[in-house]
């Protein structure tokens, strides 16, 4: 569905994306995971045809995004992070407007709007001005807007921004339902690990590079059986001792030493007895996407942003 080849984008001197290549099969619920400033929004805007990249190739359903932008645009829905619906207009008027922009009109458009409103539970609000709706409902209107033209691909940029946990859950349930029942391909950006867990496939973007791609479970299994997290007052020193003594490669994140091991739990008694006074707590757990991120980048999730000046930040 999406093929990206060696994509690079620069904002002046700053490189926001470096040689990104990615293939997303049709019907996938794909999550683009990364810290804010990691390049997600830039990649998103390029895919949406809103931004012309410095170099690289992208095709969507076999059509080149830059040579045939209209062919791509008519098969794709784009839901930006900031609202695209007009608060002064009613739900119906907004949908009618976007229907016109996608070449729908007359009876066909009216029927489609009615169908989507009832499908998304918005029928009762059709004549209300959008500015009177809750954030969660506004997001649903955005989705209804996107689905008007029956797209095969939906791009969503940080869709859960500003939503409370219930609305967030509703949103993801809806996305999964549309993906399952109608086979619509989704590409969703997020900086939240727990959201990425919902996806069939995730791509991890860090400092403008795509460092890993795959199903969340596969990525987690790849990095070993268990993650051991040792909290310490002097984590750097401890990490060094671990390397000398056991030959383990570990990372220091937030005052803890993290390492991966096939059967980490068996090492705990040994560790605790060998470093008296240096250890505050030890945790053993199955790997999370957070661990996957640390594994591939060598640093914590929060440190993954590029040093982007505010004015030209790719996050609008």
């Amino acid at each position, binding site marked *: 569905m999406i093929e990206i080849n060696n994509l690079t984008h620069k904002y002046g001197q700053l490189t926001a994306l470096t040689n990104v290549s990615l293939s997303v099969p049709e019907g996938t619920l794909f999550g683009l995971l990364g810290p804010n400033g990691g390049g997600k929004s830039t990649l998103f805007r390029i895919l949406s045809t809103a*931004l012309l990249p410095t170099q690289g190739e992208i095709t969507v359903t076999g059509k080149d995004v830059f040579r045939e932008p209209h062919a791509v645009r008519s098969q794709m829905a784009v839901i930006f992070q900031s609202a695209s619906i007009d608060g002064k207009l009613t739900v119906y008027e907004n949908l009618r407007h976007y229907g*016109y922009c996608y070449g729908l009109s007359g009876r066909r458009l009216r029927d489609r709007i009615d169908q989507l409103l009832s499908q998304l539970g918005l029928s009762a609000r059709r004549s209300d001005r959008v500015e009177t709706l809750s954030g969660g409902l506004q997001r649903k209107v955005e989705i209804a807007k996107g689905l008007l033209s029956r797209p095969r691909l939906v791009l969503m940029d940080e869709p859960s921004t500003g939503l409370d946990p219930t609305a967030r859950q509703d949103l993801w349930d809806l996305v999964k339902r549309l993906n399952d029942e109608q086979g619509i391909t989704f590409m969703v950006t997020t900086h939240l690990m727990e959201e990425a867990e919902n996806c069939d496939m995730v791509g991890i973007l860090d400092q403008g590079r795509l460092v890993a791609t795959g199903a969340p479970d596969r990525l987690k299994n790849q990095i070993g059986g268990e993650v051991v997290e040792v909290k310490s007052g002097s984590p750097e020193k401890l990490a060094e001792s671990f390397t000398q003594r056991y030959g383990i490669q570990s990372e220091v994140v937030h005052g803890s030493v993290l390492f991966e091991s096939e059967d980490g739990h068996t090492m705990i008694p040994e560790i605790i007895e060998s470093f008296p006074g240096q250890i505050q707590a030890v945790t053993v757990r199955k790997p999370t996407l957070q661990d996957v991120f640390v594994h591939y980048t060598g640093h914590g999730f929060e440190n993954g942003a590029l040093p982007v000046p505010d004015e030209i930040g790719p996050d609008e």
Partner: protein
Amino acid sequence: MGVRFYQRSILPTYSLWGREILRFSRQRSRLLGSVGQPALFWILLGAGLGEIFKLPVSWQEVSYLEYLFPGILVLIILFTAIFSTISLIEDRKSGFLQSILVAPVSRSSIALGKMFGGTTLAMLEAVLLLLAIPFLGLQMTWGSLITLLGVLILVAFALTGLGYAIAWLLDSTQGFHSVMNLFLIPMWLLSGAFFPAEGLPSWLSWVMVINPLSYGMELVRAAMYPSAQASLLAWGITVLFAALTLGMAVFLTHQPETGEWRMA
């Protein structure tokens, strides 16, 4: 081809035009700013300056209130053009403009929809002021009234296009306000709206000669008097002005975004 043109150009233009009208109908306080303020200027300046301000000999028979009237019509149009195109900056900050740009619509229809919307609103508001014509004792014929409306549409279209091009290049409404104060309002002041070119220092009259709005102003003024005849030059330059701002608006909308700096 026909269907595609309808879907990608006509429908989106119509829809964007309709949105401008709908939004305006729900923010009626905008009328105060774009009609109320100029109308108030007109009455206060007309009454206040009428006695002391001496118009040149060729304008002896015209009261200052009457002289200022066509200028105020153009000011209403200018304000409406500004208010309706400044929203382009807000539309870019929200996802509205972005979403239109990633829809399969022709880029020209984005500029045209906005410009038709601004022009329509400007005309609606200008017509409100035209209701004052009987009270000025102007002897207008139906023919000259139609000419006047046509001229006003042309000027409104040109100014909306200019506002659109400015708004496209700026990324803050504050920036737009600076441009308005430093460029658009002086352009109006020096168009013959406020005082005629006769008897001015030569540098000032030169500014009026190169100001394209001066010629639109001449057309508006001429249309109000059935005996007056606007010059062919005034028609030519005003049509060119409108064509040029339309061209700029369309050209800018066609430029692909590369994420470079916009003027803050």
